[in-house]
Each structure stands twice: as C-alpha cells, then as structure tokens.
C-alpha cells in the first residue's frame, strides 16, 4: 500500500461517507414526508441545515469536555468510516475487522455522552441513560448476528466476508433469519421509531441534544450522516455481498437505510423497558434460530 493510497483513503473515505450520508438524510426525510403525504424538504436541505448550524453567530459551550465530546463524536465516526471497506478502498480497513469496528462505533457514543454530561442538563443525562440502555438492548441481537456472520464466512474481517459472498451467495440468502434479526437491530441502532425514546422531544427535549447549539448541533448533524452511511454499508457488507463497485454498493446501502425509515412511522414510541423487552425477545430469537441453522 503506497503512501498516496493511504492518504487518499484517509481523506476520501470520510468525505464520501459524508456526501452519501447527506443523501441518506435527505432520503430519510423525504420518505417520512411522503408517508405523511407531504412534499418534504428540498434537495439541498441537509446541506442548508448543516451550513446554517456551522454559520451561527453565537453558540454556547458548557466547558472543554462539551467541546471534546463533539470532537470525539465526529472523529470517532471518521475513524470508523476508514475501517469500513468500500469498493476500491480496502487497504486500511484490513487492519481492523468486524469486532474492532463495532467497538469503534461506541467511541462516538461515548464522546457524545461525555459532552452531554458536561452540559449539566438532566434532560441530556436522561437521554444518554436511555440511549445506553437502548444500546444494551439492540447490541445483543446485533452481536449474535455478527457472530453468525463471522462464523459463517469464517472471517472476522469485513473484506473476507465480502469476498466470501461474492464468491458464493449473499448472506441474506444463506442466513435469512440472521439478516432479519440484523435489520431489527439496525432499527434500534439508528434510533428510529419505535426505538427513539432517548430523543423523546416533548418529554426530555431531545435528550442528548438539549444543550447543543450552533456548531455543536452541526457536529451531531454530521454525525448522523455518518451513522446512516455506516449502517447502510455495514449491513450491505454483512448480508448483501458488499459491492464490487460503487454503483453496486450504493443502491444496496440506500435500500438498507430506506427499510427502517419506511417502517419507523408505523409505530408509536416504546418505553425503555418495552424497548429492551422487544429487542431481547424477537430479534434475539430470530438470530438464535438463524445461528442454529448455520452452526
């Protein structure tokens, strides 16, 4: 791997993730608007939002950790994007693997949690408490899915998994149960309805975001783009054979993100304990059945 290649990957991968993520955000908002028979935002709306937030004249900080929290949240995702293999850019991603990646994905959450913590706003802390509880809930099925995939593809490296699928069949065909369970977990991971108790705008004033203004909020918006991108590409790599080219990968990733968005508005919001209960019941059961088939 040449130096130029490394640099280009380091720069390009987060950039692509950002752009694709913006489109995913747009798609998400469009889907929800269409489901509610609205027109929805204009095409560049996600960019407008982010530019506006970064362009705010004044903004408040509750202290150094508040700032660092946002840095960690954005930076952690940037690191994670580099570890996520995409067509043509797999050099650095090889150094990690699925376990490393899934732990990488916790860094932004931790960063955000720290930042929110210093805001000294209990709404934020409650939000974090709920978000972490939700993480505990959706990570169990997710981790079984990851285990099943790694066991089935005989590799913990995402590149190895993609190679396997491209040589044989897609994971969703060979392990349908795990794929469904994974989708379930994805819903929780993206924090979409019915699993968005930690935002609960009317109750705890958007929880973690309560004290975020200007570029702080902007950072979280950027994080959201990364989050959607990561979810889409990760799931596509695990079950949809990844992508041989971008043309192949992007539709899959968009499709993956579109599914939770489409279901989201059919549901009310679950309480924390109900959220845990449902995520520990159905997807775990499905995942275990799926695991039983492949072991």
């Amino acid at each position, binding site marked *: 791997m040449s130096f130029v290649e490394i640099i280009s990957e380091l720069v390009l991968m987060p950039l692509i993730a950002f752009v694709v993520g913006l489109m995913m955000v747009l798609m998400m908002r469009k889907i929800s*608007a269409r489901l509610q028979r*609205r027109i929805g*935002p204009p095409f*560049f709306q996600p*960019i*407008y939002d982010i530019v*506006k937030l970064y362009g705010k*004249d004044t903004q408040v900080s509750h202290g150094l950790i508040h700032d660092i929290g946002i840095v960690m949240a954005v930076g952690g995702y940037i690191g994670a994007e580099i570890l996520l293999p995409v067509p043509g850019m797999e050099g650095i991603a090889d150094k990690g693997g699925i376990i490393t990646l899934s732990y990488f994905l916790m860094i932004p959450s931790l960063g955000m949690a720290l930042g929110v913590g210093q805001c000294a706003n209990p709404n934020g802390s409650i939000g974090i408490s709920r978000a972490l509880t939700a993480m505990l809930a959706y990570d169990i099925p997710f981790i079984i899915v990851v285990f099943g995939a790694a066991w089935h593809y005989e590799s913990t490296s995402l590149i190895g998994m993609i190679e396997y699928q491209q040589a044989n069949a897609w994971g969703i065909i060979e392990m349908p149960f795990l794929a469904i369970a994974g989708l379930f977990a994805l819903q929780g991971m993206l924090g979409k309805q019915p699993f968005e108790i930690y935002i609960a705008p009317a109750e705890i004033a958007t929880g973690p975001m309560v004290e975020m203004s200007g570029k702080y909020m902007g950072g979280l918006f950027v994080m959201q783009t990364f989050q959607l991108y990561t979810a889409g590409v990760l799931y596509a790599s695990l079950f949809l054979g990844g992508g041989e080219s971008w043309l192949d990968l992007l539709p899959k990733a968009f499709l993956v993100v579109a599914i939770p968005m489409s279901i989201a508005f059919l549901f009310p919001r679950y309480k924390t304990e109900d959220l845990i209960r449902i995520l520990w019941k159905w997807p775990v059961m499905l995942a275990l059945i799926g695991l039983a088939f492949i072991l």
Partner: protein
Amino acid sequence: MMKKELKIKSNKTNQQKQKRTNPLANVFDDFIDFCQSKSLFMLHYCTGCGAIELPPAMTSRFDMERLGIQPMVTPRQADILLVTGYVSVKTLKRVILTYEQMQAPKYVIGICSCTVNGGMYWQSYATAKKLNEYMPVDVYIAGCMPRPEAVLEGLNRLKNNIKNDRKEQKGSAWKDYYKNYDYYLGNQQNLFGKEWQTPVDVIAEAKLYGLEGEGTYGENTKKLKMVQHPLLPQEMKL
C-alpha cells in the same frame, strides 16, 4: 419615538457588516445568509389560542418542511421563536429567558393580535401588551387568529428578510437586543421589578461577540449590576 431611534441604530450596525472588501468573503456571507434563510428551526412558545394554527401549517396540508422550516424543542437549537398569543407577565419572564437562551441569529415572530397590542386582553392587568418592548420582533402576524396561510406568509416574509439581510437590513433585528439592551432591560424592569435578572449574561455575550452598541449600557444596566449575581463560567483549574 423610541422605535425610530432604534431603527436608526440598527441600520448603522448593518452597515458595518458591508465593510468587508474581500469578494470571496461576501460570497461566503451571502451563502451563509442563504442557508440561514433556507433552514429555520422554530421554537413555538404556545401561550394562547394561536398555537392551534401551527399544526396545519406543519403537517400535510401546508407542509412547512418544504420551506426548510421544522420545529425544534429547545431554545439552544432554535432560530425562530414563535410567540403565539397573549403574553402574561408571568409567562413573559419565561419567554425572555427562552429568547436569551437562543443563539444568534435568532428571530421572533409574534402571532395573533395579542402580541401586537394586547388584542382582546388590552384591558387586562396581567398581560404584556406589546412584545417588541421586551425583545426585538422580526415579524408580526396579526389576526385573531391568523390562518395557516397567513402564518406561512409571515414565515416567507422572514425568510426573505434574512436572505436580503445585507441588502435591505431587515433580518438583523436580533442585534438590536444587544445593542439596545438597556432599553429592553428597562422595560423588563418596569414590568418585573428591580430584582429582575436572568441567568444569561447578555452584556458579557455582547462583549464577547463584539455586539455592543451605544444603547447596551445605560441606567437600567447599572441597576442590574447592583442586584445581579454574576454567573461566571466554571473554569478548569489545575
């Protein structure tokens, strides 16, 4: 009288912004203004009946989101403060705190006649009649209550103001709060008494962002100094 003076002062401040000579910077500023006009997060302070007209404006019939406007829940995130209806003295304290906690550029829209002149509560002892005595209001939408079309019209007017801020000097009413803080504070003190203060230190904010004007300091701020418990940010100590 007072109002006219204010207008003049605010015009001055807008002229300062045009002093930038770098054309790229101008383009950049224009772009940000454009984005600001295209993306507005709104905090609706639903005090009265006018609030009932907002749901139709947001949902499928009129769909505010196509204009780039969406509701937000905390003042930190919001750009627009919608005050929808009469403001009692007790409520006004909260409205002012909420306004001060919003981050600039921030806009205030007064909906319904009550915010304009007290409306049907004109004779009430407990309501604040004119909202713009206590904070700079960008747009008033009169009516009892205004239809969603009117609300959208008002929002569109605000968007245009913001977009053309630098040309027409309309969208920067928020700066007025800093530059004429003494005036607003005086009105607030008249209503709430001498002990009145919020946890937000407006003067320090104005100092930090260079938004001080001639009217920032005055007799009323001096009075405030007498009673204020200054809340300095906690610094890290090694």
